[in-house]
Structures are given as C-alpha cells and as structure tokens.
C-alpha cells in the first residue's frame, strides 16, 4: 500500500490528497479520508454519508473496471473544499472510461428482470450533486489517465 497525504491551504481553499494502491482493503482508508474532509467542511451526517458511499463506489469501480481487478496500480484521491461545497477527484491510469454507453439500471424491474450489479454509477449520481469523467494527468505524471470529479454541496 502506497500512501501520500498532502494537505495544502491555497487561495482560501483547503486541499488534501491521498494515493492508494488499487486494493479493496484500501476502501476503508479512502472512505475515512473523504469522511474527514466532509466533516471538516461542516457537512451534516447524512451528507457525509453520501460522500462516503459515492467515493466507495467510485474507488471500487476503478479497481474492478479501469484496472480489471485488484493490482499494484495507484488511485489518487483529492479533496478540495470551499465555502459551500466539497470537490472530490479520483484519478487512475487504467482503461479509459467513457460513461456514455453505460445503460441505466432498471429500478422498477421485477426480481427476474433485475440485473445483478450496475448500481455503482447510479449511486454516485444520486448521492453527489455533480459527477463528471474526463482524461487528465494522473499520479506519476503519466498521460491519458481517467479523472473523475464529484461535487457535493453542503446544503442541498
């Protein structure tokens, strides 16, 4: 497990970062990391929980889909808060991800027709106020890495 924890106070914004290897056992740590960030920016318990679960789903998806399973590859999580919101970025250097083709889960289907899985993206979108995927420079300055940005407003 690789871990770097950087906190910086710049331009009235509070930034912290953690870098973890793509292991499910690191979920505990990335959750704790974002929970602390959410609590410190004064979010209510229910909002903190939403952030925690959304990041868990995102981190799990990167391991499962971007890296095709657990590996030594890295995932970088950055939290940046300002007056009214928390911005969370997750970066990885796995398979490029384009969310457009991914179907919505059918939440009204009966048991037989219900798919197993396919809930992670739905959770992230429901729990956070903004969710967007893009390419960016990832950890180690490698190019063509995935960048996921999720924003949660304190009061909404």
């Amino acid at each position: 497990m690789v871990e770097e924890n950087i906190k910086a106070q710049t331009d009235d914004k509070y930034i912290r970062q953690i870098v973890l290897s793509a292991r499910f056992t690191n979920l505990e740590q990335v959750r704790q990391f974002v929970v602390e960030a959410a609590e410190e920016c004064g979010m209510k318990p229910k909002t903190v929980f939403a952030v925690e679960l959304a990041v868990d789903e995102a981190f799990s998806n990167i391991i499962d889909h971007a890296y095709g399973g657990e590996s030594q590859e890295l995932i970088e999580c950055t939290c940046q808060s300002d007056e009214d919101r928390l911005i969370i970025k997750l970066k990885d250097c796995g398979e490029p991800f384009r969310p457009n083709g991914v179907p919505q889960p059918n939440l009204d289907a009966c048991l037989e027709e219900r798919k197993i899985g396919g809930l992670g993206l739905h959770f992230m979108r429901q729990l956070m106020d903004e969710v967007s995927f893009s390419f960016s420079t990832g950890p180690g300055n490698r190019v063509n890495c995935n960048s996921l940005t999720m924003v949660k407003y304190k009061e909404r």
Partner: protein
Amino acid sequence: MEVNNTEYKNCDLITANGRIDSSTAPQLGEAMEAITENGRYKIVFDLSGVEYMSSAGLRILISTQKTCQRNNRGEVILACIPQRVYDALDLAGFVPLFTIYDSVMDAVGNI
C-alpha cells in the same frame, strides 16, 4: 466484518456485523452460497449489526434473492435494517423486492 449462520429447521439465519463493501462482500456471498448450495432457500438476514453497505453488498442480496425465489422454493427476508443501509436499499430500488421485518423473531416466524 463478521458473518455467522444459524441453521434452523425452518430457515437459515445469517447475522453480519461491520461494514459490507467490495472488500468484505465476498465473505457474505460465501456464507449465502454455502446455504443455497446446501439446498436451503429460506434465509433470514439480520442486518442489525451492519453499519454500512455499498452496492457490492446489494449485489449479493439480489443474486441470493434470485437463487432463493426460483421455483418459489424460498426467499431472503431482511430483518432489523439500520437507516443508512435502508437508504442504500431504497436508492437501489430493492425495497419492493424483499420482505422486511423490524425483528428477527418476526422474520424467522414468518418465513
């Protein structure tokens, strides 16, 4: 996370304690499969000790429910669901797919 199973004549009672995420869900999955592979399809899942559940846990629930309800041979009943876990079930649209009780006794008595 800790998972325990009590085998009754009428059903199996699964009790989990702790956090169910992608790291720990396989353990829950194994406990559920041990039951269904034993030819038993009536499962009461006592969630009172489950502090947290991500979609990895829900995946186990829905796949076990599919196995159990096949040919009307049984079902998974959920008991004592903490609010946070209920919220996740609700977000997933799972609430109508499970019988839910506030007490384990009610669940075991009615399965």
